[in-house]
């Protein structure tokens, strides 16, 4: 069976290549969710780029409004009408039904003349203007869908739903080939986020779950839910022994790690605010540069300028490394970034250029977007680390962990599984001085305690030094991670 492009970037990937030609696809959502935008983009894409003329049937929104809205996305629908590649027809459900039943009716005639392949009908909710009797409605819908099938059209139909729950299954969902649902959910306090989910797709595979969706000046775009391509397996000690070591360049730490991090795996650097997590990450990338390995710094916390200043204070000329093309900084403000969009941007960056080391600073900045959906956060982190592993990249992910982590213990042990090495950096008052301390909580997939070390940060870099014996309470705190 032939698949055709929906014209919505990312949505074809969710459908593993596109929707089936000739299918009827129902698009559900609350008012303002983006159903009309999706439909118009589908039609525009077909008419403009696929030589598939389109017909839009609208029962409520004025065509003139559609022309206007589409122009805001840069789609000139009226130009396509002049080329006979598109018709936007405003009508009533009753007229539409009567005309469609007649093979010589206006709609079929138009469709034949223009060789229409794509139809967008907005919306089936208005069929209730013909009858509210459920049996009649179902018959009406069935006969309408049959006509479309016979005509070989690929059809998008919208349906309005009152609220976000998906408990109720409408009969329309049964009679169509595929159902797409758009959700608008609150994230953070005043922020709303759109998701799209395929609820069913007869005769084809699709990626399940909610996928982030955005509407901007270019129209609609879907970011398929990042997924690890295979189940993550933490490296076993046996595998790790023969694996290549990637030195961090941090004095003392590489010795503790028997040479460095394990190539292709990821380390979590967790700790208090101000405990030098970013400096650890910078030092790791800079060491790569001295070994001829390009590094990518994904900066969600600090601007490139601030990073360069931080680097200078530990004796690293980050600016030079960036200018020489040895380090690339990908910066986004955490308030604006959508984690799924970020994932696909990283994926694209790794496709285009080769990197051996990557830093994500920090995971903490992405977490609010997950809105306490712990499973989704975990899947996301797995997918991201898996992406690095596929490219044989050694990575460091930083995460802020306060003292009050007990209530999140479960999450963290869950998340921790994906990291091969876990370092905790803590600020501690020791003999009336605030000291920076480091504990290796996990190395090479096994829990591990090397004791607490002090470390110093100076303009010569980071140096992990003497071991000291902590109190048992202090150790317990560290191990909550």
């Amino acid at each position, binding site marked *: 069976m032939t698949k055709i492009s929906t014209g919505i970037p990312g949505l074809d990937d969710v459908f593993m290549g596109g929707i089936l030609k000739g299918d009827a696809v129902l698009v559900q959502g609350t008012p303002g969710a983006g159903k009309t935008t999706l439909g118009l983009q589908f039609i525009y894409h077909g008419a403009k780029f696929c030589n598939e003329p389109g017909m839009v049937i609208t029962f409520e929104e*004025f065509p003139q409004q559609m022309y206007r809205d589409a122009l805001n996305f840069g789609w000139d629908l009226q130009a396509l009408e002049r080329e006979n590649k598109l018709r936007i*027809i405003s009508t009533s459900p009753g007229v539409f039904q009567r005309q469609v039943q007649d093979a010589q009716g*206006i709609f079929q005639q138009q469709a034949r003349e223009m060789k229409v392949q794509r139809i967008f009908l907005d919306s089936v909710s208005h069929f209730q203007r013909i009858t509210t009797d459920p049996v009649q409605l179902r018959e009406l819908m069935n006969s309408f869908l049959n006509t479309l099938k016979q005509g070989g059209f690929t059809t998008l139909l919208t349906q309005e739903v009152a609220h976000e729950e998906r408990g109720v299954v409408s009969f329309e969902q049964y009679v169509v080939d595929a159902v797409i649902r758009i959700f608008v959910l609150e994230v953070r306090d005043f922020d709303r986020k759109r998701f799209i989910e395929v609820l069913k797709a007869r005769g084809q595979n699709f990626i399940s779950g909610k996928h982030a969706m955005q509407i901007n000046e270019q129209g609609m775009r879907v970011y398929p839910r990042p997924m690890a391509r295979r189940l993550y397996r933490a490296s076993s000690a046996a595998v790790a022994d023969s694996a290549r070591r990637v030195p961090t360049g941090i004095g003392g730490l590489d010795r503790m790690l028997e040479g460095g991090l394990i190539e292709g795996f990821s380390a979590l650097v967790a700790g208090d605010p101000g405990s030098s997590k970013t400096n650890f990450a910078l030092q790791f990338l800079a060491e790569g540069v001295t070994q001829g390995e390009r590094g990518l710094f994904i900066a969600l916390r600090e601007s490139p300028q601030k990073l360069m200043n931080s680097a200078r204070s530990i004796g690293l000329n980050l600016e030079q490394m960036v200018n020489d093309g040895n380090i690339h900084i990908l910066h986004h403000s955490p308030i604006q970034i959508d984690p799924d969009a970020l994932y696909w941007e990283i994926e694209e960056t790794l496709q285009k250029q080769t990197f051996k080391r990557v830093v994500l600073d920090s995971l903490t900045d992405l977490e609010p977007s997950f809105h306490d959906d712990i499973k989704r956060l975990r899947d996301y982190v797995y997918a991201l680390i898996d992406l690095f592993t596929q490219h044989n990249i050694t990575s460091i992910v930083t995460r802020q962990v306060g003292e009050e982590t007990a209530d999140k213990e479960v999450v963290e042990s869950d998340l921790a599984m994906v990291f091969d090495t876990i370092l905790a950096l803590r600020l501690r008052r020791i003999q009336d001085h605030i000291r920076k301390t480091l504990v290796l909580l996990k190395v090479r997939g096994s829990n591990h305690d090397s004791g607490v070390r002090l470390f110093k940060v100076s303009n010569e870099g980071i140096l992990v030094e003497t071991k000291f014996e902590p109190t048992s309470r202090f150790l317990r705190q560290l191990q909550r991670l």
Partner: protein
Amino acid sequence: MPTSHNGWLRAVLDSPAKVELLAFFYLNQYTVDDAAGLSRWLGLDLEKVSIAAEELSQAHILTKIGEGKDAVFTLNRDEKIQEAVENFIKTYYLPLDQRHQILSDLLQGRTIPRD
């Protein structure tokens, strides 16, 4: 017979409902609807819209398909008629419509596009 002058069209358009209806068809060229549907799009009284649609079809500006209350109307696509309609709308209706648009944009706090 229709000509490209506006005179005959202005004579036909002797009620606000006809002007509204014609403007609606001009801006939404591929409308296919019955009188009830048109009255809904326009938010105008069914009776007034029925009469207006009937008379515009008698003047060959709209094309009427079918009879009775199920009759549907479309815009006549004859070139000369299209031209006359376009002239009329651009001269008499759109300037007003644009003013409405600017006003509604202002009220909704949108910025006004500058040419």
